[in-house]
């Protein structure tokens, strides 16, 4: 391993600009003559719009223009789309209601976009916005996930009279019923997977720019996938053809899924830039972000696990109601379906699984992918019910898991997925050792002497990453293929630019991708620059989400590097007067087999461009190759996280005392960065489990719309985390990578709740397990514990 190659903890190339305040985030971009947009948002969760009176606002100081849904409709700007078609059990397509970028006739959640005010300054736009008078007929709001289908009254969308988007299922029902019929024991569990608000620290922002000389648009936006944004804005919203629309996602301050989607605000900014013939800038404040960023999770689930007399799992059935909010966001329909149910087998050999998912509309913010997207929900179901089953059956929770682990590969589950490689027992062994499982009873007893309740909780998670084989997702309803692109441009001096369709918003691609190229070409890492996030530079790409950039994005780079090497060998062959077949390439040098004739990579690059030594008829000048890589399977990162916590029964406060994570991510490019991804994922998972709860009141008002009420994880909420890895190579891509970005967020919630319920003595507790909830649970269990 070289100091900057695969496997080295190379310090990040991108950090210099961030630690010196020289990053360029969207809100740092200012265009000459720009005006500012303020969105007038609905104060009601559900209402008919009778009339929008903008006359007074139009006279306010500094106002340039005010647009409403009528203007959007008049310009035939298409509504926001959902790019994944789900069919119900009966074969009918999901019921997609209209989603105009500015409301037309009706508003469906608090924060829904009603009008945009464009003014000389942001303050003027906002002040004028308060003078836009909207006459509403307020309707009863549909808010609660569990009762959305039966609440009656006016539905959120006409197309879905009972607020049901689809009734979907996966698995084999008769086989599952048969398994339950012969079960020795059935464990039942009701679960709410709480709604989360993503809260990337950089709020969303957009600058729309229009060049009337060239009739072309540029959109600077906080996006995880600028090419997908361009595709949607061109093909579906009708802003401009793709050759007339450039989308730039510069430095992006975190995404976690929330910046995958194509939102109303950037659509309106780029459209309005032509209307007012000026750049139009919008920057979300935090409360707007709470109201209008797509939220995550929000499931209500009943699950049952059947086991035989030997404690082997024989069947799992799950019914979930998934709240998709007021509109179908870009990938919302895929999250509680194909990103969820196929992971319900967990790390276990469960021969029969059947899952039903009813998706509902409510008068709340749209719900879409948030770090983990469907897989945390599945992991929470399986890892909670497995824990409860182990306790009911009298098994040690680690032992119960181990006896049911999948141990041979490939393993076809009953729910689509074919696990290609893994060693779940190895991760469990290492995790037990790191947490000192044997010493836990002593630690628990010691805590008890201090008046604290100590618990330990496991989570043996699996996820499907490296999203995704295009044909496979196409057959499941995806509107796009999920390949990735790369282009390797070698300059005449031997420096290299790599253009990737992946997008880095914290993941460190500028470093890890460069490590791959540096090692492969034998050139210094400083000679490699990674270019991403600009549709005028990178031709096409699918972006970064679903822990896909290593497994898919880097595989595309490998393919392009293969082509570069092949061509470079031909160039070297001419120069060294040998057949390309006799050329070997190693450590940055081309040599003729069996001779001491050699030429280094930079010299070959130069020769490729000066092109004096070869006949251009046989070999084109230049050294630049592109590739598209379409994965052959998902990848299956898996691991074991163990949480040890202590509860203060007097206050209900839960403190995490120990955390061990042992993850199998396949081949690791940069251990430092991978560990950082795991830390961050754990923090978000712990946030979900302990701190973060989204609360709408019955009128659909968001009560947790700022950091005053939405509890973000802070530094003292965590102990020092022990993060280690095991390694089974992923056989499905050339680098053997599985992906690491979402693991922590997927693994953590059940580990925390299993630890709390262990501490409390086997009570179910809803997330987030706030001090209030834990204290109430303590009140219930303490008399019982005292009696025991």
């Amino acid at each position, binding site marked *: 391993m070289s100091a900057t190659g695969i496997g080295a903890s190379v310090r990040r190339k991108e950090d210099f600009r961030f630690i010196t305040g020289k990053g360029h985030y969207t809100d740092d971009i200012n265009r000459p003559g720009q005006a500012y947009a303020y969105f007038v948002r609905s104060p009601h969760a559900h209402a008919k719009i009778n009339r929008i009176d903008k006359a007074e606002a139009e006279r306010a100081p500094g106002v340039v223009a005010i647009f409403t849904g009528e203007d959007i409709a008049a310009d035939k700007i298409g509504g926001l789309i959902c790019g994944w078609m789900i069919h119900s059990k009966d074969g009918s397509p999901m019921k997609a209601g209209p989603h105009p970028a500015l409301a037309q006739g009706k508003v469906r959640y608090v924060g829904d976009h009603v009008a945009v005010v464009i003014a000389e300054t942001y*303050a003027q736009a906002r002040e004028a916005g308060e003078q836009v008078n909207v006459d509403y007929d307020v309707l009863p709001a549909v808010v609660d996930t569990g009762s959305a289908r039966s609440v009656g009254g006016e539905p959120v969308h006409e197309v879905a009279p009972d607020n049901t988007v689809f009734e979907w299922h996966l698995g084999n029902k008769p086989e599952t019923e048969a398994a339950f019929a012969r079960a020795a024991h059935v464990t039942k569990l009701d679960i709410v997977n709480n709604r989360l608000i993503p809260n990337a620290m950089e709020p969303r922002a957009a600058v729309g720019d229009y060049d009337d000389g060239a009739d072309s648009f540029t959109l600077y936006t906080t996006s995880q996938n600028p090419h997908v944004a361009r595709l949607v804005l061109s093909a579906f919203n009708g802003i401009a053809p793709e050759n007339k629309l450039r989308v730039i996602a510069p430095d992006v301050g975190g995404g976690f899924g929330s910046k995958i989607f194509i939102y109303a605000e950037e659509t309106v900014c780029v459209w309005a830039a032509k209307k007012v013939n000026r750049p139009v800038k919008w920057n979300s404040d935090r409360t707007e972000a709470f109201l209008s960023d797509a939220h995550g999770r929000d499931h209500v689930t009943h699950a049952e696990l059947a086991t035989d007399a030997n404690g082997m799992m024989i069947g799992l059935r799950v019914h979930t109601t998934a709240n998709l909010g007021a509109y179908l966001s870009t990938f919302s329909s895929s999250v509680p379906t194909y990103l969820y149910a196929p992971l319900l087998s967990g790390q276990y050999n469960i021969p029969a699984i059947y899952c039903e998912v009813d998706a509902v509309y409510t008068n709340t913010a749209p719900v879409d992918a948030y770090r983990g997207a469907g897989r945390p929900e599945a992991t929470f179901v399986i890892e909670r019910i497995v824990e409860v089953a182990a306790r009911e059956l009298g098994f040690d929770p680690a032992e119960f898991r181990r006896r049911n682990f999948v141990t041979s590969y490939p393993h076809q589950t009953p729910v689509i997925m074919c696990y290609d490689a893994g060693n779940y027992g190895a991760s469990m062994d290492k995790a037990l050792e790191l947490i000192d499982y044997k010493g836990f009873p002593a630690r628990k007893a010691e805590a008890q002497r201090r008046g604290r309740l100590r618990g330990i909780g496991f989570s043996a998670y699996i996820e499907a990453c490296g999203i995704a084989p295009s044909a496979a997702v196409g057959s499941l309803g995806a509107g796009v293929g999920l390949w990735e692109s790369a282009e390797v441009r070698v300059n005449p001096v031997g420096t290299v630019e790599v253009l990737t369709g992946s997008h880095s918003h914290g993941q460190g691609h500028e470093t890890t991708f460069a490590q791959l190229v540096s090692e492969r070409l034998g050139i210094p890492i400083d000679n490699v620059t990674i270019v991403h996030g600009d549709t005028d530079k990178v031709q096409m790409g699918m972006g970064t989400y679903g822990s896909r950039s290593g497994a898919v994005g880097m595989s595309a780079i490998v393919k392009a590097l293969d082509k570069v090497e092949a061509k470079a060998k031909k160039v070297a062959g001419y120069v060294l007067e040998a057949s390309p077949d006799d050329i070997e390439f190693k450590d940055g040098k081309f040599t003729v087999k069996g001779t001491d004739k050699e030429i280094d990579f930079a010299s070959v690059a130069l020769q490729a461009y000066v092109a004096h030594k070869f006949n251009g008829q046989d070999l084109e000048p230049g050294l630049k190759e592109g590739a598209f890589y379409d994965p052959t399977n998902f990848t299956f990162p898996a691991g074991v996280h163990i949480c040890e916590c202590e509860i203060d029964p*007097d*206050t*209900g406060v839960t403190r995490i005392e120990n955390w061990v994570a042992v993850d199998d991510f396949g081949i690791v490019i940069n251990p430092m960065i991978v560990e950082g991804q795991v830390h961050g994922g754990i923090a978000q998972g712990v946030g979900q489990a302990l*701190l973060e*709860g989204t*609360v709408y009141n019955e009128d659909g008002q968001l*009560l*947790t719309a700022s*950091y*005053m*009420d*939405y*509890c*973000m994880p802070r530094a003292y909420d965590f102990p020092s985390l022990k993060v280690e890895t095991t390694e089974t190579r992923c056989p499905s891509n050339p680098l053997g990578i599985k992906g690491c970005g979402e693991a922590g967020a997927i693994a953590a919630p059940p580990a925390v709740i299993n630890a709390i319920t262990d501490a409390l003595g086997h009570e179910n507790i809803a997330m987030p397990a*706030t*001090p*209030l909830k834990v*204290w*109430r649970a303590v009140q219930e269990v303490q008399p019982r514990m005292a009696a025991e």
Partner: protein
Amino acid sequence: MYAFTYQRPTSLDDAMAMLGDGDAKLLAGGHTLLPTMKQRLAAPSALIDLGALRDQLSGVTEEAGGVTIGAMTRHGEVAEDPIVKRVIPALAAMASVVGDPAVRSRGTMGGSVANNDPAADYPAACLALGATIRTTKRQIAAADYFTGLFETALEAGEIITAIHFPKPEKAGYEKFRNPASRYAMVGVFVAKTAEGVRVTVTGAGANGVFRAQDFEQALAANFSADAIKAVKMSPDGLNSDIHADAVYRAHLIGVMARRALDKANI
């Protein structure tokens, strides 16, 4: 923010004169007022910035056995002040947990007390220690000063200049933070003073800071956590919100009171 005029007086007399105009407000550290204005929940016509009077209005002096703290003294300064730490360590400890370090290096004691946020820490300390709020016009006993949510006995044009805290025999403060905002969800200041035992509660009362008199009576003879173990706080008149209902707050008041007593008795 709505528009306002900004003034920066260089004397207290000027400041008082400026305060007379319309609905002007004083700006000290600004750490309660500016967030409120940013949310457009407050729209003063003028801000009178006391920044130029900081030298005059800040600092700690030992007086009559207690401490007198200038109104513009910042939370962080109170927390680190050697006199406060020596004479009333509980007060320094309380100041050290107001907000976060950046808030403590800007927010002022006088601003906090003038604003009387029901989740602020200082009101509990003032009431428990029997502080005297000194203004440009008079001296007000803490017991007469805090009159309700964001309400005080301050009159128009009156400016807090300093607060005098008598030295207690023993004192302690403990708070349970709102998990999200980190303001006090329940904060309890206990003090054994020449006037008797005071137990004051912030963050929990529907009407702002208040005295927990059942606790005070129980502690009169025995100033220790054990003495209030059996005393139950009534949830009547306590706040309920998504983070804590009144029953839980009532329970937490007892827990925080006992922990504050343990600190006081170290």
